[in-house]
């Protein structure tokens, strides 16, 4: 398959996760990608096809690197307070940006985001033994707290109010 790639694809994708997670999709130009990923323009197009192609690879990488460990940690959770703490302290920057700005206009992004959030819901439902709808409500609350910058005592107040769930 042609000449070997003159760049570390793995590293480039990880750098793309950081760039796309830090600012809006439209705020990241191909010039930015070339400058920050250590990839020539030609290689970038040849490898990923388009900026959107790279974005999808980066989003899947973010889910594998940052959401999957969260699922593993959630599997060990025994109460709502722990589940809330795990979600509110996870690095979900790109997932949240994708949910807000790209999901409404890009079916493939919407599919990845929905699958990732569903997996968080399921992990919480399984770990705490609560109904799916309640697990989804907990994820929604946790993501809201995360978006608000995880202010002091908020997650704790919610967990205390909820008390034992089962």
């Amino acid at each position, binding site marked *: 398959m042609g000449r070997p790639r003159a760049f570390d694809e793995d590293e480039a994708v990880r750098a793309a996760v950081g760039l796309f997670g830090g600012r809006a999709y439209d705020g990241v*130009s*191909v010039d930015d990608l070339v400058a920050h990923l250590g990839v020539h*323009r*030609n290689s970038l*197009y*040849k490898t990923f096809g*388009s900026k*959107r*192609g790279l974005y999808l690879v980066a989003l899947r990488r973010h889910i594998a690197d940052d959401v999957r460990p969260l699922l593993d940690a959630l599997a060990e959770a025994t109460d709502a307070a722990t589940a809330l703490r795990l979600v509110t302290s996870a690095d979900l920057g790109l997932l949240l940006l994708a949910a807000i700005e790209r999901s409404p206009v890009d*079916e493939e992004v919407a599919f990845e985001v929905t699958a990732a959030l569903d997996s968080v819901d399921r992990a919480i439902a399984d770990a705490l033994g609560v109904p799916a709808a309640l697990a989804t409500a907990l994820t929604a609350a946790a993501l809201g707290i995360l978006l608000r910058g995880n202010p002091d005592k908020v997650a704790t107040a919610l967990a205390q109010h909820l008390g034992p769930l089962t």
Partner: protein
Amino acid sequence: MALIRIADDNLVVVMEGLDKFWAFKSRLTIPLANVRGATVDPGIATDFKGIRAPGSHLPGVIIAGTFHHDGDKVFWDVKDASKAIVVELADEEYTRLVLQVDDPRAAVALVENALV
């Protein structure tokens, strides 16, 4: 400037006005199956473009025609770099097309949505 549209599972690119003269080509028809994606890329015109054959590069005026770069064959039709888009191809004569379009964002959406 280039006009792009989707017709019968093809991406059709039509060079307007004198561009067909500078580019040595008036129209390209690419099966959508061979289109990998499209990207808004105003910065590409300042990158190295390679050796032209046959093509026209009048700096500040127009980049048009066929350019060879790193083993890739790239088709250009750009006067105003701020409106450039890149269309990446597979199994085609050209590796990629760099085209000036009226509305880059709409053109990219048109191509990307046709690929889904």
